[in-house]
């Protein structure tokens, strides 16, 4: 009892310490302090990999070797308390006055590999997260079908399963950072992006079972949330890949990501993958609801608005090093994500001189269709100011544009969606990394 009380006190103390330093800037300034100290010890002024090769301190036995560890507690495991800073965050640039129609962003700088853990998967809700009992949840398929159907979750889970890795990105990802820097970290510039392994049933199977009219060309999909969020979708473009998903990353969907059932349209803007899916209706035209006219449309130079911009075009971003980090001269791995809503990533190029010269990065396996692809690049930073950026090329041959390329054909005013421009980070002479857009 005494031991566990002591342990509890240690845990509480360390939690308090972490709470005191939850802001990213504090965390990074602490880390950069450590790095600077190391650099000083190694002799500041000499550059390169060998510059910090002073002798390390003698090693005492670590306390963890000498005391019993925490006893096993069966239950849902949580990340180490030392990772308490790796969390979803709301944007601190565009702060909503309420947190019901709101979004949280994935800490892309802290998610190695290509899979986003479920607790870090970005969120976008239009009126909060509903509490839905899977035992009572139902999906209805109707409209232009010969046999309207209702399916329970246990019905849906009896079908043969399909499992695929796909990214999901909000159409508004990057909307605060088009023309000048507003966000500090890659979590805030690009964190409406995540990737999961999805499991479910092909949408086409239940449409087929309901006897969909061959003349039906659109469906509308609707959620069971308090906004009744819905989107019209062109059947011929989604029918091969759309999935009724009930699981992600080896467990049932999280409530905030659609539990117990959501649509998953690979490669398309996230809001069409209707969460808490309750109804699919077939018809011959789009419905033109608020969410596909007044919202999720892009301003064009002639005063018009572009609608039904479904696919998220090829894009990439360097996640390490990225905004609010500090690097040391010598070897630095440049790494990040590339993705395309139209296929696979064919290549990623990296520039360390602001886009004048580019070199191919290494693509890490697996390279999958409509999925995050990890790229890596070896960089020996010589210590002067630098501008680093990545550029994706997808399997259709499409090359990620610059913001200047996009500005020529779209109006960048207000909350502009579908920002897939090349994103530079400035590296100052002392190694501080900042948002380099604009």
């Amino acid at each position, binding site marked *: 009892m005494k031991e566990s009380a002591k342990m509890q006190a240690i845990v509480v103390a360390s939690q308090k310490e972490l709470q005191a330093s939850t802001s990213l800037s504090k965390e990074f300034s602490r880390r950069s302090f450590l790095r600077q100290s190391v650099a000083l010890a190694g002799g500041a002024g000499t550059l390169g990999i060998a510059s910090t090769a002073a002798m390390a301190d003698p090693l005492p036995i670590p306390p963890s070797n000498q005391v019993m560890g925490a006893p096993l507690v069966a239950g849902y495991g949580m990340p180490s308390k030392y990772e308490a800073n790796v969390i979803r965050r709301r944007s601190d640039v565009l702060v909503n006055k309420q947190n019901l129609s709101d979004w949280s962003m994935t800490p892309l700088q802290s998610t190695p590999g290509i899979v986003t853990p479920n607790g870090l998967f970005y969120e976008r809700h239009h009126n909060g997260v509903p509490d839905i009992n899977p035992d009572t949840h139902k999906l209805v398929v109707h409209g232009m079908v010969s046999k309207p159907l209702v399916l329970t979750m246990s019905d849906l889970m009896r079908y043969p399963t399909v499992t695929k890795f796909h990214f999901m990105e909000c159409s508004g990802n990057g909307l605060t950072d088009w023309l000048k820097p507003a966000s500090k970290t890659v979590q805030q510039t690009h964190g409406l992006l995540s990737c999961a392994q999805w499991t479910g049933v092909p949408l086409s199977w239940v449409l087929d079972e309901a006897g969909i009219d061959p003349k039906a060309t659109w469906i509308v999909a609707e959620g069971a949330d308090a906004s009744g969020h819905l989107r019209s979708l062109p059947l011929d473009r989604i029918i091969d890949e759309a999935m009724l998903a009930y699981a992600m990353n080896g467990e049932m969907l999280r409530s905030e990501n659609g539990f117990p059932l959501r649509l998953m349209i690979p490669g398309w803007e996230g809001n069409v993958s209707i969460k808490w899916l309750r*109804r699919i209706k077939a018809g011959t035209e789009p419905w033109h609801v608020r969410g596909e*006219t007044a919202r999720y449309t892009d301003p064009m130079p002639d005063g018009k608005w572009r609608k039904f911009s479904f696919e998220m075009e090829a894009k990439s971003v360097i996640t390490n090093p990225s905004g609010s980090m500090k690097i040391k001269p010598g070897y630095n791995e440049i790494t990040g994500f590339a993705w395309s809503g139209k296929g696979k990533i064919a290549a990623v190029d990296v520039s360390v001189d602001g886009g004048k010269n580019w070199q191919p990065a290494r693509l890490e396996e697996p390279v999958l269709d409509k999925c995050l692809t990890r790229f890596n690049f070896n960089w020996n930073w010589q210590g002067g100011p630098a501008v680093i950026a990545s550029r994706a090329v997808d399997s259709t041959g499409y090359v990620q544009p610059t913001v200047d390329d996009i500005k020529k054909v779209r109006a960048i005013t207000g909350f502009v969606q579908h920002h897939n421009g090349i994103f530079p980070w400035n590296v100052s002479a002392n190694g501080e990394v900042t948002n380099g857009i604009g």
Partner: protein
Amino acid sequence: MVLVKKIIIITAGLTLLAACSTSQNTAPKNTSGAAFGKPIAEQDLQAWNIDIRTQDGLGLPAGQGNAVAGEKIYNAKCASCHGPDAKGGPVFGTMVGGIGSFTTNARVLTPGSMYPYAPILFDYVRRAMPMDKPQSLTNDEVYALSAYILNLNGLVGKTDEMNSKTLAAVKMPNRDGFMVDDRPDTHAVRCMTNCKQ
């Protein structure tokens, strides 16, 4: 002879494939035999069947209301978030004005300036408003609120009754303000050395 037969079969097969790929709804079929949906009659799912095809009002229910009635409902159930006269409140911005602003660099998005079709108001208010009690308004209340917002935007008269016919007939200023996605609209080149910046 055998060879000729094979060629004919292959050709026939290709023709069939080509025919399939140009027809509609050629999704991968479920060949497993699993089929677990339970038939339901359309009339038994009417409480869920609330979508409206806004360009022609298909799905608009019976009922009616005007801006006079709408103002009272608005002040009781909406003003605390949207502010007096729908000009913006503590939670949401204005729902009035902005017509003609889309050719300027400060586009003001309101139902009046942005919605291409008036039934969008009915569809959205019925399904999502008030935010703390969605799907609680009667159809008459939703028609009245739609009329009120349209009236504040100068698009219908104060006593004009909105119903399934008149609401769908309101001509919205931004009706022709949309174009369908035509991307890719950029054509970047994969330059590797001495590129223009």
